[in-house]
């Protein structure tokens, strides 16, 4: 705690990292989800309700996300732009990917796993390290507060 002293009167949230999947483009079908809106062939699909893609999990080779239903199928090629927003800076991560699995959650969304390829490996390593360090820092604070330290 002493190296990140909370000043009296300020509960901080220095662990906060917002993750926003700003753009998911299905190169196979030309469907695009950009800032929650669906586009097809560059034109907005006004009938589709807005949907914020949720980044659920870091998998072995890529990521798991909740996306609008019927956006892609196994084997489809994706282009992704994911923003990782910390109090200090925003990292805009671009990658291509392949859909490895799709699980339909009835009446809700699809849950997909995409393996990543064609991306800046150093940037991806940095992002994963950021999340690991965040987890370690939270655990340090948590255990100090529990009195385990």
């Amino acid at each position: 705690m002493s190296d990140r002293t909370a000043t009296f009167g300020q509960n901080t949230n220095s662990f906060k990292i917002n993750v926003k999947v700003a753009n998911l483009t299905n190169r196979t079908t030309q469907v695009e989800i950009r800032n929650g809106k669906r586009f097809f062939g560059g034109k907005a699909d006004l009938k589709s309700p807005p949907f914020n893609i949720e980044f659920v999990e870091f998998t072995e080779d890529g990521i798991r996300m909740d996306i609008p239903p019927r956006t892609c199928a196994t084997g489809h090629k994706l282009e992704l732009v994911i923003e990782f927003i910390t109090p200090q800076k925003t990292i805009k991560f671009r990658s291509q990917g392949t859909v490895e699995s799709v699980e339909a959650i009835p009446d809700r969304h699809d849950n997909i796993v995409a393996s990543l390829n064609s991306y800046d490996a150093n940037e991806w390593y940095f992002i994963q390290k950021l999340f690991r360090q965040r987890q370690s820092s939270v655990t340090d604070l948590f255990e100090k507060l529990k009195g385990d330290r």
Partner: protein
Amino acid sequence: MAQETASTASPDFTLTKDQLNKFNTFIGEKNILIADSNQSVRLSLSRVLSEMGVRSAQISLASKYHEAKDQLDAKAHEIVICDYHLDSRYGLELAPIHRNKRPNIEERLFVLVTGNSNESTVAEAAEEDVDAFILKPFSGASIRYFLVRAALAKAHPSSYRAELSKGRHLLDSGNLEEAVRVFNTAMTLDSAPSMACYYMGQGHEKLGQLTQGTESYRTGLSFNEIHYRCSIALFDSYTTQSKPKDAYGVMKTIASNFPMSPQRLSKAIELAVRTHNFEDIGLYHSIFTNLDERRDELRKCVCAALVVGAMYHFRRNNAPQAMQLLQAAAVTAAGSASMLREIVTLLVKFNLAESADTFLKRFDAADRAGADFLCSDLAVLDALPATRPADVIMRGRKLLADGIRDPIVHRIMIKREHEVGHEEEAERLMAEAISTWPDLSNSFQLSVTGQSPAPTK
């Protein structure tokens, strides 16, 4: 593994085969409840557990708080993994239920997996004795690592922790003197046994030995001057012993070194008011504004403290600081009519009717037919220097005719009716007021005795 800290741990959260085997031994046939509103998260967590060798029959899933509670009631799962938010409730509300169902500390785990990274949430989880705090988005590796870590800390504790655990069992079963002896032994097993001191203090307190309890916490703080549990316990101890100034001193140390859970913040504010540390109210307000979760009870507590703090500053002729706190109170009140009324009443009391008038505009349109607004409005009208008595009387009579019964209305009407020589009406209102609110009879009489009688018509 039980000894290493997260910050010195393997940065990629890898586990050895031995650790995984020990985890599987710990899990055995235990049942696991996963509670999360997001189905993808429930499935991901199930998948990770299955990959670790847990059978699907051991895993229950719940998407809502009530589902989770019902399942916990029915099956008494040894392990609960849940999110901070569960539909409209909080996952941590399951923690005391879980402890009740599974009083044996060694066999249970409560793990929070949440996207809420606010430090006050971490403090809340620590105070609820949660075993691990895992952030979303997670990786399978982080889930595995922290689950195994939490499990092995229970299954293979150090000799110090084993002694602490033994002592806790004795505390829980009411064998208090033996518990204190065990914690005394535990103190010899670690170079900085603040936790043993904390539990020893708990034992002394349960034995009614408050002074020894306080001493134990202070001893714990001598090993680690910012040991959270000892600090909180010392604060609670001083509070129980009606030593608010000492308690407040400890609270300020806690606030300076640790994030505050909402419950702790509420206690700090109440104590600041009780000990007249009004200068600190603004700081507690800033802690409140940084919380992700601002529950209604806490909001009311903060608002009330800001108003009391403003009163303090008015009395010290520090109107600018008072007005700042009132502005903060009005924003924090988020349109609460009763709180806005408190603010207006205070300003009228300190002869700041014009300022009070600006706060009337903050009432929601929907509240303008309600008693809080109408009484506040009358109070401001009565206080404004250019107001004619007849205007106040006309407004007040309308409120009374509409059935508004409020001490403010009666007080103002008694004063004004007396002022213009309507003695019979003033006396009738006085009798009605004293009968309805006998505790306030002095203030009603002051409305009249504080005025010179009006000349007779």
